[in-house]
Structures are given as C-alpha cells and as structure tokens.
C-alpha cells in the first residue's frame, strides 16, 4: 500500500531536514511513500485566525487531492498541518452544510475518508514492528520528548495518546535505546507562530522548555513538529538570553534520532542543517 505524504510548507523550506529524515527512514524500511501531487498550504495559524471558511477550504483541498490520487492513508509530519487537516475533517464530518459549502468553494469532491497519521503514528504502524535487529547504534542518551500542542490537542478531534504527560514518543525512543526523562514541559507551547512577529515571547516560552529539559539532565530534545524544532533550535539565542545562560543541548526530529539508531548516514538525515550543533 502506498502511504501518502503531505510535507507542508515548512518541510519544503526552512525545515527540509525533517522531510529528508522522514524519507530516509521510509526508504530504510521499504515504505512506499508518495507525495500528494500539487498540494497546497494548509493555511496554518494565519488562515484560521483571519478567515474561517478559508481555514477549512485549504486543508479540505489537500484531503480531496489525496482521495483523488487514491491515497487512503497519508502521513503529515508537521504537527500543525496534522492538526489543521484533522480539525477540518472532524468539522466537516459533523456539519454536512459546511461540507457542501467547502466542496463548492474548492470545486473538488470531498468525502472525508482519508486516514490522517502524524509521524509517530506512522512510525508505530510501519517501523516499530520491523525494528527488531535494526538498531545498530542504540541512541543511548537521556532525551526529553517534546510533544508541543498539536500532536495531542484537542483530544476529541485527534484521539491520539493523551493530553497530559503523553507517552507515545517516549516509548518509541525507548525502543531505539534512549532513556526518556520525566519532565514538566512535554506539552507546553513553544511560542508557535509568534516566532517572527513576537520573538520575545518565543524566547520566554521556548526558554522554559529548554531550561527544564536541561535541568533534568536531558542530552537532547526530541520533537515531531518543524515549528517546535525551529523555535527550540533556531531561536536558541533568544532562549539563552531569557535563561541568562548558554545551553547547548540539540533538538532532533524523532525521525532523525531513529535514523541515527538504525545506522543511517548523518548527512542523509540533515543533521548539519541545525542551528545548535547536533553532538549526539
């Protein structure tokens, strides 16, 4: 079966190492993966903040394309896109009038039958069953698994893991030899889209996250969202300013950590693209 792939804007631009690592891992496990043709931006925070109909139409178009292209299951590594697509599917399923309106706006048929997976669900389904014997370089580090907001909230829409102290990424990391730590900021927001428009807030919020992970002895922070990675990594200068000290722990995508554990080449996982040097 071919797994559809919706990279979203970040994975094609400033977070391309995430896409690289996802595809590298898929290749290593012989997962047939296919990018949705001519996909559009999901609208992210901007659309739902300014225009409700647009915020439903854009993600619906992506799902309609997946349906048209025969991709019944798609993986959406960006947690924000995952949240937008899932919320749209949930709302349109609840409200037939809205569903009809969106189909009319888009001019494409929409059935809402696509299964939307986040990156952890994809790994749990297609990779962990085949991990036996593949872990050649166990990721023997203490890691802080950071879930952020959109992997687990709102629970009634996503129905994934649990809202407080989620465990899915932690158990995945355990399987590749890591020691996930118990820490207090697993699902506290990193500052999201305020990265550019209000960087000081991101410095504070991401600073609290990095600070707590560091205080509890984490050697790396593992994430599954390009926005989170960017805030925790690219904005490290603002974080260090907020904390009043310099913290060097790197921020890796879960697919990069897994890739390292199964012996994939560092360059193929895009580790050189990070701002904070990945020393693990």
């Amino acid at each position, binding site marked *: 079966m071919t797994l559809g792939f919706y990279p979203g804007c970040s994975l094609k631009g400033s*977070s391309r190492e995430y896409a690289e690592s996802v595809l590298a891992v898929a290749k290593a496990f012989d997962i047939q993966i296919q990018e949705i043709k001519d996909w*559009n*931006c999901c609208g992210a925070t*901007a659309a739902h903040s300014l225009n409700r109909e647009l915020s439903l139409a854009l993600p619906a*178009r992506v799902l309609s394309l997946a349906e048209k292209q025969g991709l019944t299951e798609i993986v959406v590594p960006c947690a924000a896109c995952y949240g937008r697509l899932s919320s749209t599917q949930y709302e349109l399923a609840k409200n037939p009038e809205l569903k009809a309106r969106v189909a009319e706006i888009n001019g494409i048929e929409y059935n809402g039958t696509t299964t939307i997976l986040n990156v952890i669900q994809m790994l749990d389904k297609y990779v962990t069953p085949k991990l036996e014997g593949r872990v050649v370089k166990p990721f023997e580090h203490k890691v802080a698994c950071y879930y952020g907001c959109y992997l687990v*909230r709102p629970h009634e829409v996503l129905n994934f893991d649990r809202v407080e102290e989620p465990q899915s990424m932690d158990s995945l990391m355990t399987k590749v030899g890591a020691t996930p730590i118990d820490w207090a900021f697993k699902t506290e927001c990193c500052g999201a889209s305020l990265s*550019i428009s*209000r960087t000081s807030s991101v410095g504070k919020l991401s600073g609290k996250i990095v600070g707590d992970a560091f205080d509890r002895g984490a050697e790396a922070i593992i994430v599954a969202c390009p926005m989170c990675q960017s805030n925790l990594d690219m904005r490290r200068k603002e974080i260090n300013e907020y904390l009043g000290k310099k913290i060097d722990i790197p921020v890796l995508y879960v697919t990069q950590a897994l890739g390292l554990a199964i012996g994939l080449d560092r360059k193929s996982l895009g580790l050189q693209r990070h701002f904070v040097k990945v020393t693990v």
Partner: protein
Amino acid sequence: MSSDPHHSVISGLGGEIQEHTEVKVSHCYQCGKCSAGCPLSDEMDYPPSLIMRMLQTGNPELEEKVLRSFSIWVCLTCEMCYARCPMSIDIPKMMDYLREKAIKEKKTNPKAKQIISFHKSFLDSVRYTGKMYEVGFYADYKTRTLKILDDMMLVPPMMKRGKLRIIPEMIKDRSGIASIFRKTSKKK
C-alpha cells in the same frame, strides 16, 4: 435557537458567538483554570477567563474592549485552555471568531500590528504561490511592518544550511487557489 437544554438567551456579542461557534459564554463559571494554564496570560491585557466574564455581562463597552484587546491576537491557539476547561468551552474557536470580527470592523489593537501583518503576509504568499514561499512572505512582512533589520542576521546561516529557497515552488493549479481565495474573500 437550539433546543439544547443548556441553551440560555445571551444578548450582544456573547449571543453572536453562540450562534456562530456554539460556544456558550454562560457556561463559564470563572474558575480561572484557563488563565492559570495559558502560557501567555501574563502578556495579555485580559486573560481568557476575564474575556469570558466581559462577554457574559452583555455590556457594549466591555464587548468593545474585548474586540480591541491584545489578548485575542497574542493568543497562541495552543488549545491548552480548552483541554483543561471543566465546562469544555472551546475558547480557541471563540478567539478565532473574535479575531475575524475585529478585522472586519477595523477594531484591531495597535499592539497587534506585527502579528496581524504576519498572518496577512502569510496568506498573501499562499494566494500567489499556493504554498508559503518563505522569502517572498518575509519580504512582504517587512514591507508591512517596516521591521527591516529584524532577523536579518538569520539570513546567512539559513542560506548556509540550505533552508532558504530563493525560487518559489509554485502550485500548478494557481487559478484554483485564486478561486478559493476569491470565494472566501470577506469583501463581498
């Protein structure tokens, strides 16, 4: 008017919110759990539970303050409030409604200029290329906000790491996207 047994008649902006989003401001009993858990409540002029109270009063002056607040723009829509609210009030959905209304009625808080410009530039980029073209979007944002020098230091390292795509990847169905934007345009 729904036949929901919880339905109560709330006038003004609260009633409007109920009609369009199904969020019932009368359900809030001011426990403050949302404000306590909100990551940026200390940067807001009115924390979320206070916004709920202002809407409950039906007082037009307070409703005006809500629309003109900074809170609705600095809210991250992180959904933490909704996850913890004992009455399951969908505050993020309400925030989205208030944002759209504030823009429509030109009542946006001046402190939110950069945040709103960010969103507008973002959507402009999507309209023209179908995806978020980072360089183009950024240039547009700088023009709107005149914050030319901010983050310029990031450009070289981003380029060095191959994270900045100079040439946009355009969607093929540009007219399809343009049509979506046209049909959902608020200028009717």
